[in-house]
């Protein structure tokens, strides 16, 4: 019943009352209720209602996959920096929908999330590394990383270059090779050639 009420409320313009109800139910015993509460809270930005995003952080580690998924989606609109680390962990989640959503959210967080991608790509867990590479390509973050090779911010340039290099090491070379085939900036193509050359000689 509570899940139904929250679902109906999600379809209506949000109010402080409906948000309070959702917050109260974040720790409900029923995962479906928790998921619906998160779905509602994910809409708060749209209606300019302020909530404390820290309250949603524990839901990212929920035991039930669809609750984690809803939490990730909620942070997609809340764009909370404290969530980045946990979202990074979710890139290796056993459920692909959670992984996919987490990578989408991180990819949508400008370049603030590059560190988390780097951290996972340097980890020992091959499965997590490959999953991250896959998601970087699926979310088109790879194109942005290639664009960053021309970025005047040295830190962003270095991080992007390193991610692309690590991806290449794991045989995720298509974005680089495809860029070389199509029309694009010569300066970027040169830098890509260098990365490819380094990988060959390594």
């Amino acid at each position, binding site marked *: 019943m509570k899940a139904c009420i929250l*679902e109906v409320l999600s379809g209506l313009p949000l109010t402080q009352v409906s948000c309070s109800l959702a917050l109260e139910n974040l720790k409900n015993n029923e995962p479906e209720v928790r*998921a619906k509460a998160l779905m509602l809270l994910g809409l708060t930005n749209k209606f300019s209602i302020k909530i404390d995003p820290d309250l949603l952080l524990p839901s990212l580690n929920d035991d039930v996959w669809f609750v984690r998924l809803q939490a990730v989606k909620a942070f997609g609109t809340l764009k909370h920096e404290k969530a980045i680390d946990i979202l990074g962990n979710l890139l290796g989640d056993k459920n692909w*929908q959670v992984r996919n959503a987490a990578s989408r959210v991180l990819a949508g967080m400008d370049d603030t999330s590059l560190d988390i991608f780097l951290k996972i790509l340097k980890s020992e867990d091959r499965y997590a590394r490959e999953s991250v*590479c896959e998601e970087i*390509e*699926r979310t088109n973050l790879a194109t942005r990383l290639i664009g960053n090779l021309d970025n005047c911010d040295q830190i962003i340039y270095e991080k992007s270059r390193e991610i692309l290099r690590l991806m290449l090491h794991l045989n*995720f070379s298509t974005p680089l090779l*495809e860029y070389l085939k199509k029309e694009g900036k010569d300066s970027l193509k040169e830098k890509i050639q260098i990365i490819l050359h380094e990988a060959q000689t390594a």
Partner: protein
Amino acid sequence: MKWLIVSFVLGFNYFVGIYYGIFNLLYSILLAISLFVILRYIKRIKYIPFADYRNSPKTPPISLIIPAFNEEKVIIRTIKFALAVDYPAFEVIVINDGSKDKTLETIIEAFQLGKIDLVHRNFLKTKPVRGFYYNPEIPNLLIVDKERANKADALNCGVNVSRSPYFCSVDADSLLDRESLIRLITPILESNVPVVACGGVVRVLNGVTFKDTIIKEVNLPKNALSVFQVVEYLRAFLFGRVGWDVVNSLLILSGAFTLFNKAAVLEVGGFRPGNITEDMEIIVRLHKYNLKNKKPYRIKFVSDPICWTEVPERIKMLGRQRRRWQLGLMQTIFQHIALLFNPRYGKIGMLVIPYYVFFEMVGPLVEILGYIIVPLAYLLGVLNFEFLILFLILAVFYGILLSTVGIFLEEITYRRYPKWSNLFRLLLYGVYENFGYRQINSFWRTQAFFQYIFGRRKWEYVKGKGTDIENWEKGK
């Protein structure tokens, strides 16, 4: 010598009489069961909480796997319909099985796809994958380009790539109804026993008009051959399969539209690449594996989720299709002949496989011989007039009854052909089909029977379905 010929002809006549008696009795039982089950289902359907399932996060994701070989003319339409399905979480995976036409290029252009890398684990061994194509704007569409093999290999490749616990095989020329997936998953959600496969209804697309991804009007096709197939499909799906489903004895679910439990398919080793009718073969293998290992399981058929498919409009192509089906049936039966009368496999071994061997496999041959020998016996004076009439009633008029009941079932339940003119046409064709169409079908199947026996087991092209497409080519 004359005595021997007369004895043979007489004996054969008695055999035909008894054979059709048993055959029609079995069909009558199936018919009665189906009538009861469909009517009960129609009453129940109002109370099935489809909306709840659609909104529930517990509803499992599904991968739609569409194998495609030389399908440039129809593939975009199929993908658009698949993407428009009303289901909470699904992905569409198109496997380009080394098409020689521009299937891949057409898809890339239409959906603005780019090449990406994916981790590809070859759980089921397939021909090498050449590339993956994807558009982040359409996150639930993935195209896999692989080296040419066959449909089973393409399906296996799709299973390897799929990320969902369930996958649905869809033919490249078939269009899914918007509600088809949610209706197909319902028996799985409601069953207490693991459902390893669940099939829906395949209906004839010819004559149907649609705009974008919405079916606008369902009409009977103008082409007579297609109307015969409409009657045939109604009969096969509305009571043949429903009847067998009740006793968990389905041996055929259409590869054009069947939902599979991925883990169960992986357990049996996936689709068998050398098989002509890989859809039937995998169902037999699922039965065999689960019965052998004493695992509780169900193979279900639901009569309302719909997939529309094109049927051949030219007699030559229809002949090829029917020969192919018969060859596939025989291939599967002989691959699993150990099940025949094997009590270890329960009703599958003792009832269903014998039914398929003695009626579906041998039936066309008996029918064709009957058409020759029974009238001949009458002309030779071996047979009396009453027996000739009995044979005609059993062989022909009972067919009319079956077709009529199939149409009747459709009318009282789903009524997809709402016009009265369509109903009359269907009834008319239900009668007509027993005077020529059915006999030519039996002739093709008999041809295939001998092709199989004498080792000419080649897979034939089916060109020129509704949109003049060229379907799967399989070697050897």
